[in-house]
């Protein structure tokens, strides 16, 4: 039955890391494929057509960013970047160039599995053209009705400004995934990101948080990824 298993490609040059990720994937019912450099990665992608790619950006032969670019020229396979916490710029670049998400080294198995599930869900939505077709979004007690533009938390209606609603809507569209400042600013204001627009974005996010969160200092839904962007927590998995 191994043919029915979801195939996940691990592109990572460090053998111990490849080993433990493979083990985690296999025990969780995935089929793990491995590549230790960019060249092997392309061969594996072409011959095995994996459904998710886990990509370490520091590869010995080519820059991980170039791998994302080349994969994106031909396909929309979800790519999850594996990156260290202090390399914020690297993550943002990878996300802006087409990576779907990132996971910060070091990570545990539950975190990795959650990321893979989110990535798979999104890719299925794209395949079935489900994205945007839904009229109601909900995660835990937060509901967004895209038709009437109504947002409720625990049944209580929340009044958002136009911009706040659009921000929440775009985060809901990509629920579970981190969206970079640049991506959000491009989509909402149509301008390139600079200091002022980032400040405007942050203030708007803080205001949304005050309206939908019980405690804005310890948010449940609207999460900040320092130096990268925002994520709407996927609480229904």
């Amino acid at each position, binding site marked *: 039955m191994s043919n029915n298993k979801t195939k996940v490609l691990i592109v990572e040059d460090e053998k111990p890391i490849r080993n433990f990720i493979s083990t985690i994937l296999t025990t969780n019912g995935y089929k793990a494929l491995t590549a230790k450099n960019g060249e092997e990665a392309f061969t594996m992608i072409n011959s095995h057509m994996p459904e998710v790619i886990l990509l370490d950006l520091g590869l010995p032969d080519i820059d991980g960013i170039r791998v994302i670019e080349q994969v994106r020229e031909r396909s929309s396979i979800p790519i999850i970047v594996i990156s260290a*916490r*202090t390399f*914020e710029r690297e993550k943002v670049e990878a996300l802006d160039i087409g990576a779907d998400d990132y996971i910060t080294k*070091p990570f*545990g198995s539950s*975190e990795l599995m959650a990321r893979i599930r989110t990535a798979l869900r999104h890719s299925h939505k794209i395949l079935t053209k489900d994205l945007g077709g839904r009229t109601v979004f909900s995660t835990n007690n937060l509901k967004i009705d895209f038709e009437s533009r109504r947002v409720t938390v625990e049944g209580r209606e929340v009044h958002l400004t136009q911009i706040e609603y659009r921000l929440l809507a775009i985060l809901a569209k990509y629920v579970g995934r981190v969206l970079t400042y640049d991506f959000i600013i491009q989509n909402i204001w149509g301008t390139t990101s600079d*200091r002022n627009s980032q*400040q405007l974005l*942050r*203030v708007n*996010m*803080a*205001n949304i*948080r*005050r309206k939908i969160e019980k*405690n*804005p*200092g*310890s*948010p449940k839904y609207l*999460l*900040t*990824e*320092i*130096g990268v962007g925002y994520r709407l927590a996927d609480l229904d998995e």
Partner: protein
Amino acid sequence: MPEKAQDFLKTAILLSAASVFAYYAKSVGEATDVISVTYILVVVLISRMTNGYMWGILASVFGVLSANFIFTAPYFEFNFTLTGYPFTFCVMLAASIIISALTQKYKKQKEEAEEMTQKLQESYQKQIQIERATEKEKMKNHLLRAISHDLRTPLTSIKGAATAIKEGGDKLTLQTRNKLLDDITGESEWLIRMVENLLSVTHISEDTMKVSKVPEIAEEVIAAAVSHFNTANIRQSITVEVPDELIIVPMDAMLIHQVLLNLLDNASKHSGDSSEIKVSLTAGNDCVTFSVRDNGRGIPEEEIPYLFEYGETKNQTNTVDTNRGFGIGLPTCKTIIMAHEGEIWVQNEPGKGSCFRFSLPLE
């Protein structure tokens, strides 16, 4: 213009002016005294304004000769037999020499004083540089000692636990195995935090010991740190309290995130399992204060002076197991807060818990 040419020009202009003035005075019938006084004045001025004795002496010679030549009978002819002539000449010459000498002395003293000031300043700066370098060297050594000391312990337990599991094989009970695996996880988490602390310090500019600040929303940084921390295995509950108003503080968010993580980690490790941790934010007029409070057992008074120093734990011997000192977490917090021109301190009540606070300036 070279100095000599300048001096020549000054001399020429002043002498011409004196001659014209004297001629005019003479033509309106003033006494001959005015002429010699005018020349003396000019000689004094020239001596004062030029370098060396030469121009002053030249001017006095010229003054005496021209007074004789132009202004005394027979006009436009020299007459060296006039009464008082050698006397006038001597007075002018003496005046010029004395003034020139004084001027030279004054100039030399001024130069010396300037040179002295510069030398003092240079040596002062050198002194500061040396002090800074020694300070840096000292900190680096402390840090290295703390790191190598603190690295060995977790590495030993990781290696030990891993080999124990491998060699023990089937003979180990599931419970023992899990205990060893928990140790490996815990020790590696500790190592990771240490590496992240070290990396964060590299964000601080080595020359200025400052960070580049960007306006950030304070509650976002707290929220990110708390949620990051909550994913780790902790036993205590964490509550967060932020004011209703939005507080924007200039900071390096990654570094303040690290400070909060360290303080949370510290509170979680040293306050006991049943304690509650509370993170709060308060805004003042010119600074904001973050605090991480626990109601655990508190810190022994004698350890407080060493909390924020690299490699200076009080109990150097008691580092084998859980009490490996406070590691480099709190000293890193201090380094980061100092680089933000803020302050960090601890309020401690033995038996009732401790509260770490740090403030960041708003401007």
